[in-house]
């Protein structure tokens, strides 16, 4: 037992190590050389990849947790219960990476606590910061039983789980409301940038559009993650559950497409729809990837019932969603700022390292905790004695 063995050098371990090394250097550049040396941000493009990819995509893709939790605990969709823990964990790690992202995204991260005491109720960002703080706490509590049930002390474990059970419905309800608020307010942030945001993306309905796009993206990400766990981590979730979940995504995308269409038609964006320019091309890229292709694919039972095809379609939804958030936060500002922002490699490295860390955490959680039903039970790694299990 005391023999120390070097970890095996596998492909993924190598990739993860390279990403972490790059991320560590990027973090060093950010904190010891400043924004100028570690990013390509300028005054006319003050929010770049860290906000667009780290925060906007991170929060949006983490929308699966509240949606599945609400479906199972509040709406009684018992058949999704096998995936509820995975969905909550995915969201929790997503929010943790967003909070981590704040540490290098903010200019003065050591003042991150300021919004708790210094209030400005007129600021959308203030509401977002409070919602994210509270919701991350809610997610931690929703996730906590997965850890607590591994505590070897029976009384303590039972005491916690009993109280948790009483509070759970309230937590899920509060979580759903908080999520709805800040998912939409992330879009609301851009309302104030009227005149700077390209007409293809500016809309008074930005909050609603952000909300309606986050939920299908979050569900798609959950399906993808569960599929991967089925494939590589001995998870045994009935693929029919995933197929059924995907049936909700298409109608959601319909509603989104309808509102987006009406919005584009009525808010002066129509003349820009068929102009030969980068923004318009990226707009169509986004729309076809996020809405058109997935709607066509998901309407076919063949696609929904084939786990591989379903995984690919969900990947499209997630990538299309990311294209939307990056378009809103970067592409849409290109013309008005007169600056062609391309993130520096250190920006990519830091975000990638953060997301990878979340991925690694997810991997070990699924391996060592009861996150998903499995063919091989998890190791009782914290249990002192089999009698306590």
């Amino acid at each position, binding site marked *: 037992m005391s023999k120390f063995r070097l970890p095996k050098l596998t492909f993924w371990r190598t990739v993860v190590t390279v990403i972490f090394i790059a991320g560590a250097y990027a973090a060093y550049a950010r*904190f*010891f050389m*400043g*924004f*100028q040396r570690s990013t390509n*941000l*300028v*005054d*006319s493009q*003050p*929010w770049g990849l860290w906000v667009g990819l780290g925060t906007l995509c991170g929060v949006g893709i983490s929308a699966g947790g509240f949606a599945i939790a*609400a479906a199972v*605990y*509040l*709406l*009684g969709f018992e058949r999704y219960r096998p995936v509820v823990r995975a969905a909550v964990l995915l969201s929790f790690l997503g929010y943790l990476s967003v909070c981590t992202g704040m540490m290098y995204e*903010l*200019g*003065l*991260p050591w*003042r*991150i606590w*300021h*919004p708790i005491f*210094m*209030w*400005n*109720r*007129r*600021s*959308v*960002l*203030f*509401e977002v*910061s409070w919602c994210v703080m509270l919701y991350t706490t809610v997610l931690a509590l929703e996730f906590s039983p997965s850890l607590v049930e591994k505590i070897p002390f029976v009384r303590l474990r039972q005491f916690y789980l009993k109280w948790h059970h009483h509070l759970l*419905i309230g937590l899920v*309800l509060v979580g*759903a*409301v908080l999520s*709805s*608020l800040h998912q*939409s*307010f992330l879009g*609301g*942030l*851009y*309302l*104030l*940038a*009227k*005149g*700077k945001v390209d007409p293809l993306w500016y809309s*008074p309905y930005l*909050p609603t559009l952000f909300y309606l796009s986050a939920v299908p993206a979050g569900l798609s990400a959950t399906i993808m993650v569960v599929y991967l766990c089925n494939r590589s981590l001995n998870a045994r979730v009935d693929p029919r559950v995933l197929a059924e979940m995907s049936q909700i995504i298409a109608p959601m995308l319909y509603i989104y497409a309808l509102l987006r269409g009406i919005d584009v038609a009525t808010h002066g964006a129509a003349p820009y729809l068929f102009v030969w320019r980068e923004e318009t091309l990226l707009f169509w890229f986004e729309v076809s990837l996020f809405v058109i292709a997935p709607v066509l694919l998901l309407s076919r039972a063949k696609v929904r019932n084939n786990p591989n095809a379903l995984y690919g379609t969900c990947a499209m939804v997630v990538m299309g969603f990311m294209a939307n958030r990056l378009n809103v936060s970067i592409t849409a500002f290109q013309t008005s700022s007169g600056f062609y922002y391309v993130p520096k490699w250190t920006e990519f490295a830091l975000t990638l390292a953060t997301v990878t860390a979340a991925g690694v955490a997810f991997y070990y959680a699924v391996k060592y905790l009861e996150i998903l039903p499995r063919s091989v039970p998890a190791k009782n790694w914290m249990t002192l004695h089999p009698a306590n299990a």
Partner: protein
Amino acid sequence: MARTKAILIDITKCIGCHSCEAACKQLHGFPQDPEPRLSPTAFTIVETHDDRFVRRMCMNCQDPACASACLVGALKKTELGPVTYDSSKCIGCRYCLVACPFNVPRYQWSKLAPLVTKCDMCFARQAQGQPPACVEACPVQASIVGWRDEILEEAQKRILFDSKYVKHIYGSDEVGGTSVFFISDVPFEKLGFTTLQAQPMPVLTANALGDIPTVVMVGGGLLAGLYWITNRRKLVALAEAEEAAAASGKGKDRHHV
């Protein structure tokens, strides 16, 4: 609102001597090198558009987008008119840069503890009854300062009695009015001024923020109601199963196993 201060910049009078820039830099202790654009060490600059000189500075809006954006309230519209920045509150989120319709705030990208920088109309000086340094330095009174209503009246008088002026005071109603006005004999669009709506920027987000109580009440209420139905169904199903079990003569507490 109490009386607020305002600056009038008459583009027809400016001779492009850059004295305002120099005075501003001196007051803030910045290096004197001339800069082409606003920067963390240039709170005002004079741009050249053909043969016209246009001074740029923070417009110190009546209802500033930056102040509504700032989540910690570091940016504030003071009673006196200037929009001030409390650097001790700032967390460096840069939402003010995104929000400002005039693209005024600048960020100290090269520093390790970067702050937002912008002109505050020499709030400290004005609070003591002194004019802003730039206005004081102007040798031809192209910039003048005074109470906003009086300054506005003066601007109106000038564009009314002299036909060379464009019949618009830039800043009188842009984004709900500003504390810096421009009058010119060349159309403003040709001098790099952005055309803006009369609606104050914060109105754009106020509507969305106003929906919070509705979302909380309706959304929360709806979900709570749906949970009640779900729970009720469960209880009914349980009771029915119990009855059925009792009717079929089997053990009463069978379902508890």
